[in-house]
């Protein structure tokens, strides 16, 4: 078997980063509270061996993706066998390298995820410790999962991570926004043909699968291939019980079911990443659960969306690379990795920093980027764009701040676009009166564009006073190479190393 959540737990325990709790804990606020307070100070992950109200042996693990403020990717690195002490540049370079070598998964005949099989009325979601995360939530949620569906017209299997609401013992409601492949496949292919969509939600298994599921991929790309690349080994899959969907063999829990055409159930509200509520209680995609397979003594992974808790760190850790394949697919006229950055502060979906040459790459470059970003599915959640000069380091937030505060004329360099409705949204079931609530940030918001580029040639020919611009390359190299000889233990982060990062 490959690396799975149990291997990860074992590695974290060995590194002193996971604590086992044998006293009974409640899934209702208590376990999440452990996770959130621990995230504040870079504390441990927790494995709860006894959870109130669920069958004996059904366990819960929290905090396994939590890092520190400086290194949000710390535990993800451990999960992928990457040195957790790597600095940001090294982490992204290694992740980018692995992502560039996808591996096709392999099918196996037997799997741990089939140790227990429960069909029909025996399959009860309430047997598992799905948590209630915060006082303003409208129900219990699973915020890390791999939702797997299949294109009816091709071999494309799509896997995504969505807010999964536990509606009852045999009903789940999935909160997926209109720009996702999930919504596109379901509404445009299955519903349009009046067909039920087979669907599987995999919980646990190789953390590489969970990480890949969080990334925004272009249509046609299967996240299993990406997970294989990240692991350096093909993922092992096994056929589901009630459909021909292939599921991760080493998952802890597999929930199988169907989505009937136009069937919706109420979902929400939910405190989502960065503290925003993901909207009022309203109809979303309803899944009928027909079968649950799981390991003996299954371990449910829970993540929390509070600042610096697991979901937050997970998004921050993959923010810059998690959406790059999509940009590549869209053919944006920019270089990836060096010229565009999605800031960690905004998760994967809110703030983009884009470098622009002076003079402009070509007339209309900036407008092209704005049009693409605001109009393309998957990119439309980006509501703040900042353009800076080519010599700004995308890896260094202080560089961006400096550009923002020194090169920007508030009278003419801040552009606010009118609120717009993203045309890809399929939401005929929403009452007109509810539209004002419906994910306003991603659908109806205006966009803010900051043009923090130099508007004229600087008098001395040096636009920005930094290590990279003030000294000849020979001198820069000499200082960096002699750093250790000067008696400093920590390696200097030479910003130029970011230029080698490509996807």
């Amino acid at each position, binding site marked *: 078997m490959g690396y799975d959540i149990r291997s990860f737990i074992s590695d974290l325990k060995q590194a002193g980063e996971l604590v086992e709790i044998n006293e009974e804990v409640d899934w209702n606020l208590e376990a999440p509270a452990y996770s959130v307070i621990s995230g504040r100070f870079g504390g441990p992950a927790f494995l709860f061996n006894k959870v109130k109200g669920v069958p004996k042996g059904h366990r819960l693990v929290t905090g396994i993706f939590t890092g520190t403020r400086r290194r949000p990717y710390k535990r993800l690195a451990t999960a992928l066998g990457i040195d957790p002490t790597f600095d940001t540049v090294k982490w992204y370079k290694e992740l980018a390298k692995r992502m560039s070598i996808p591996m096709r998964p392999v099918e196996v005949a037997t799997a741990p995820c089939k140790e227990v099989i429960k069909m029909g009325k025996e399959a009860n979601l309430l047997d598992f410790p799905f948590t209630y995360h915060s006082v303003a939530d409208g*129900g219990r949620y699973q915020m890390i999962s791999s939702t797997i569906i299949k294109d009816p017209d091709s071999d494309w299997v799509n896997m995504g991570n969505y807010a999964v609401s536990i509606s009852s013992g045999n009903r789940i409601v999935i909160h997926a926004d209109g720009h996702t492949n999930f919504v596109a496949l379901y509404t445009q292919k299955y519903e349009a043909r009046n067909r039920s969509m087979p669907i599987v939600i995999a919980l646990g298994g190789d953390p590489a699968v969970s990480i890949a599921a969080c990334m925004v991929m272009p249509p046609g790309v299967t996240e299993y291939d990406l997970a294989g690349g990240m692991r350096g080994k093909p993922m092992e899959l096994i056929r589901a019980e009630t459909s021909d969907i292939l599921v991760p063999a080493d998952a802890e829990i597999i929930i199988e079911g169907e989505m009937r055409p136009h069937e919706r159930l109420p979902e929400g509200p939910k405190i989502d990443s960065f503290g925003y509520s993901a909207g009022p209680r309203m109809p979303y995609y309803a899944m009928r659960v027909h079968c649950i397979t799981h390991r003996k003594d299954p371990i449910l992974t829970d993540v929390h969306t509070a600042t610096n808790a697991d979901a937050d760190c997970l998004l921050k850790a993959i923010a810059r690379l998690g959406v790059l394949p999509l940009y590549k697919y869209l053919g944006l006229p920019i270089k990836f990795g060096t010229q565009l950055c999605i800031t960690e502060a905004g998760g994967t979906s809110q703030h983009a920093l884009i470098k622009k040459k002076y003079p402009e790459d070509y007339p209309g470059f900036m407008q092209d980027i704005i049009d693409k970003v605001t109009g393309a599915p998957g990119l439309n959640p980006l509501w703040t764009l900042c353009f800076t000069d080519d010599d700004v380091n995308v890896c260094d937030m202080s560089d961006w701040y400096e550009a923002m505060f020194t090169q920007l004329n508030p009278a003419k360099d801040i552009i606010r676009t009118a609120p717009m409705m993203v045309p890809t949204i399929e939401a005929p079931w929403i009452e007109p009166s509810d539209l004002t609530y419906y994910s306003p940030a991603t659908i109806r918001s205006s966009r803010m564009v900051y043009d923090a580029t130099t508007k004229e040639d600087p008098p001395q020919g040096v636009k920005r006073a930094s290590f990279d611009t003030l000294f000849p390359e020979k001198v820069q190299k000499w200082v960096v190479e002699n750093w250790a000889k000067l008696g400093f233990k920590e390696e200097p982060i030479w910003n130029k190393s970011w230029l080698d990062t490509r996807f």
Partner: protein
Amino acid sequence: MKINYWLEKKEFEQNRASIGTNRVIEMSVMDREDKIWRKSKVEISDQPIKGSQPVALMGPFGEIGDEGIYHIKLIEVLPQSEEDL
């Protein structure tokens, strides 16, 4: 006062005319023990009546208010799905 149930404020407002009328209406009720919403037949009132329980109202973004001001008498929890029938 222990509040065991939540109602959606929007749905509650739509049924405001039923308060204190002894009329049985269908509403979604969340049992705070298991955090599951269930369609139920209830009577709503603005004061305790025999067999009633105090409730809180949940606003559109999860804000909880009017705790204990209104009460419901739970008549019947309706089947949630075809499988429950």
